[in-house]
C-alpha cells in the first residue's frame, strides 16, 4: 500500500528527486547481506521451478509404471522413482507449486483477517479492543498445529482446507503484532496532525498508521510462509492434507515412510526440498528484519 502511494506521488520525473526512498534503502541493505541473498536465490529457484514446472519437469509427476518401481537415482531419473514408478524429481518440481501456494495463500488469509482485526483493535481501543482480544485469546489457547487439525476435522481433509486451517491459526499472530505497532503509532505526532487536518479514522488507519507498521508484518510474513510450508508438510504427513496422488512434499514423505528401509530416496529428497524452501524464507526473513530496522543498518 505504501509503495503504491509513494510511486503515485513521485511518478512524474523522479530523476530529479535526490531523496532516497525507504524501499530502495532496504534493497540496498539486503544486497549487502550474503545470507539473505542466498535465501533470495533459493526462493527464486523454487519460484521459477513452480512457474515453469511443466517445462522443467522431465516426466509427468502422476505417470505410473509397474516395471520400474523404487528405482534408485540414475541418469534417467535423477532422484529415482517411487513405489509406483513415478519420477521423484518431477514430483518435487510440481510439489513446489503446491508448497509455495500453501505458504502464500495461508499467509494471505492470516494477513487479510489479522491486519484489519489488529488495526481496529489497537486504534479504537476500549470495548472493541477487549472483544477482539478475547477472540484472539481463544484462538491462541490451542497450540497452533492442534487448532489447524481441529479446523480440518471440521472442514474435511484436503489441500484447500489445509490452507484455510493454517491461515486461521496464524490470525492471532498478525492481529497481536499489528495491534502492538498500531498502539505505538497512533500516539505519534503525525497521526495527531492528520486528525487535526480533518482526516477520517479510516483514512488515518489505512494511510498513516498501517504503512508505518509494515516492517514487522513483512518480516513475520516471510517466517510465517516457512512455518506454513512446514505445517502443511506435517499435516500432509498425517494424511490430513493433500491426498494421493498429489505430489505434495509432506504427503510424499508420509508415503515414502513405508519404504524407508529399502528406498531412502523416497523420503530424503522431498525432505531436502522442504528444508531448502524453509531455509530460504527464514534467511530472507532474517535479512529483511535487519534491513528494515534502521538501527541495525550497516552504512
Amino acid at each position, binding site marked *: 500500500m*505504501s509503495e503504491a*502511494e*509513494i510511486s*503515485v*506521488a*513521485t511518478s512524474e520525473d*523522479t530523476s*530529479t*528527486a*535526490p*531523496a532516497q*526512498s*525507504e524501499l530502495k534503502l532496504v534493497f540496498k541493505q539486503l544486497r549487502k547481506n550474503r545470507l539473505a541473498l542466498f535465501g533470495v536465490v533459493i526462493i527464486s529457484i523454487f519460484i521459477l521451478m513452480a512457474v515453469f514446472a511443466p517445462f522443467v519437469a522431465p516426466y509427468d509427476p502422476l505417470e505410473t509404471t509397474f516395471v520400474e518401481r523404487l528405482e534408485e537415482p540414475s541418469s534417467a531419473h535423477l532422484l529415482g522413482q517411487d513405489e509406483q514408478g513415478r519420477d521423484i524429481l518431477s514430483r518435487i518440481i510440481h510439489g513446489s507449486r503446491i508448497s509455495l501456494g500453501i505458504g502464500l495463500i495461508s499467509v494471505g488469509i492470516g494477513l487479510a483477517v489479522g491486519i484489519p482485526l489488529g488495526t481496529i483493535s489497537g486504534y479504537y481501543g*476500549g470495548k472493541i479492543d477487549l472483544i477482539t482480544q478475547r477472540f484472539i485469546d481463544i484462538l491462541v489457547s490451542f497450540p497452533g498445529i492442534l487448532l489447524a487439525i481441529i479446523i480440518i476435522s471440521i472442514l474435511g481433509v484436503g489441500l484447500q482446507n489445509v490452507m484455510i486451517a493454517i491461515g486461521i491459526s496464524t490470525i492471532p499472530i498478525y492481529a497481536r503484532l499489528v495491534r502492538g505497532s498500531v498502539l505505538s503509532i497512533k500516539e*505519534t*505526532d*503525525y497521526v*495527531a*496532525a*492528520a*486528525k*487535526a*487536518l*480533518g*482526516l*477520517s479514522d479510516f483514512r488515518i488507519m489505512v*494511510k*498513516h498508521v498501517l*504503512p*508505518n507498521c509494515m516492517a514487522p508484518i513483512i518480516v513475520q510474513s516471510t517466517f510465517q510462509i516457512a512455518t506454513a510450508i512446514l505445517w502443511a508438510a506435517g499435516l500432509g504427513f498425517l494424511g490430513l492434507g493433500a491426498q494421493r496422488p498429489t505430489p505434495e512434499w509432506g504427503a510424499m514423505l508420509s508415503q515414502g515412510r513405508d519404504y524407508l528401509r529399502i528406498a531412502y530416496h523416497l523420503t530424503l529428497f522431498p525432505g531436502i526440498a522442504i528444508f531448502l524452501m524453509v531455509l530460504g524464507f527464514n534467511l530472507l526473513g532474517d535479512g529483511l528484519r535487519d534491513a528494515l530496522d534502521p538501527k541495525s543498518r550497516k552504512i
Partner: protein
Amino acid sequence: MGTNEQNNLLEVQNLHTHFHTDSGVVKAVDGISFSLQSGKVLGIVGESGCGKSIASMSLMRLIPSPPGKIFGDNVSFNGKNLLELSENQMRQIRGNEIAMIFQEPMTSLNPVYTIGNQLGEAIKLHQGVNKQYIEDKAIEVLNLVGIPRPKEILKEYPHSLSGGMRQRIMIAMAVSCNPSLLIADEPTTALDVTIQAQILELMKDLIKQLNTSIIFITHDLGVIAEMAEHVMVMYAGKVVEETDIFSLFHSPRHPYTIGLLNSKPQIDKEEDNLIPIKGTVPNPLNLPEGCSFHPRCDQVMEQCKRQPPQLTEISPGHKVSCWHFSSFTKNNEEVEF
C-alpha cells in the same frame, strides 16, 4: 475584549475538559472563557501542564474520549457551536476552518510519504481532487511560507529536511485551506533561536496576508510579546489573568503573572540570580482548596485558602482572578473579610 461582540470569530464560554482516570478526575481545563476577533492574535501562556494545549485540543475536539470529556456552555465558532456538531461536521471544520500547528516539526510529518503527498492530502480533502489544482496550490502555499525550490521539495521525504523547513511545511499545510482560525501550539519551542525568529516573522506576515486569527500557545514570554495582542495567563486549568500585551508586561496584577515575569532573564538588567516561583505546579488530581495558586503565592491571605476567586474585570479589558482584586468590585457579596 467586550467592545465588538458581533465580530467575534470565536467565543468560548465556560469550557471544561476533564479526564476521568482510575485515580480520580483530572480537571485539565476548568471553566475557561475567552473570545477572539477575526484577524487578531490571542496568546495563551502558562507553565507546562497548566492546560493550555488541552484547551486548544478541546476546541478542535481532538481529546480522546474516554477518558477525556469536553463540556461547557458554548464554544461558538463562526456562529456554530462546536460542542454540538457531529463528528462528521467537525471533520469538515478541522484543517479547513480551524487548522493547527504542532510543537514538534521533526515528528509531525509522516516519514513514509513525500511532502507533496502530505500537503496534497490536506488540499484534496477540503478543496477538491483536481490533480493539477492540488499541485499548483501546494506550490503556492510553499512559496507563501518561503520554501525555496517548492517543486522539488514536493518530491522530498521529511527526513531530508531540517526542523525549520519542516515547521514551514507544517505551517503551509495549516494555511493551505485558508482557515479562519489557526491554533499554534508552541510552534517555535523545538527550534533554535535564529529559526525561531524566522518562523515568528513568517507567521506575522501570514496574519497580515491571510487575515487569519491565531491562538498562539507558548510558555515563552518573549515570543508572546512578539506575537500576541491579547494574552491569557493560565494556571492549573484556569485563566488567572487576561489582558492586552502592554498591561501584561507593564502592570501585571496576578501574583503568578508577576512571578512568571520575574523568573525571566532580562537583557538590560544585571542580575545574579533569577527569581523562580517557589514550589511546583500542583498535582492536577489533587488541587489545593481555594485559589489553586495559594501554596506558591507570596501574598497569600486566609481567604485564598478557603474559596476560589472569580475572574474579575479590574480595568477595561484587564481581568484578574485573585482575591486581592476581587474585593475591589462593587457587587461581590461572597467576600467576607
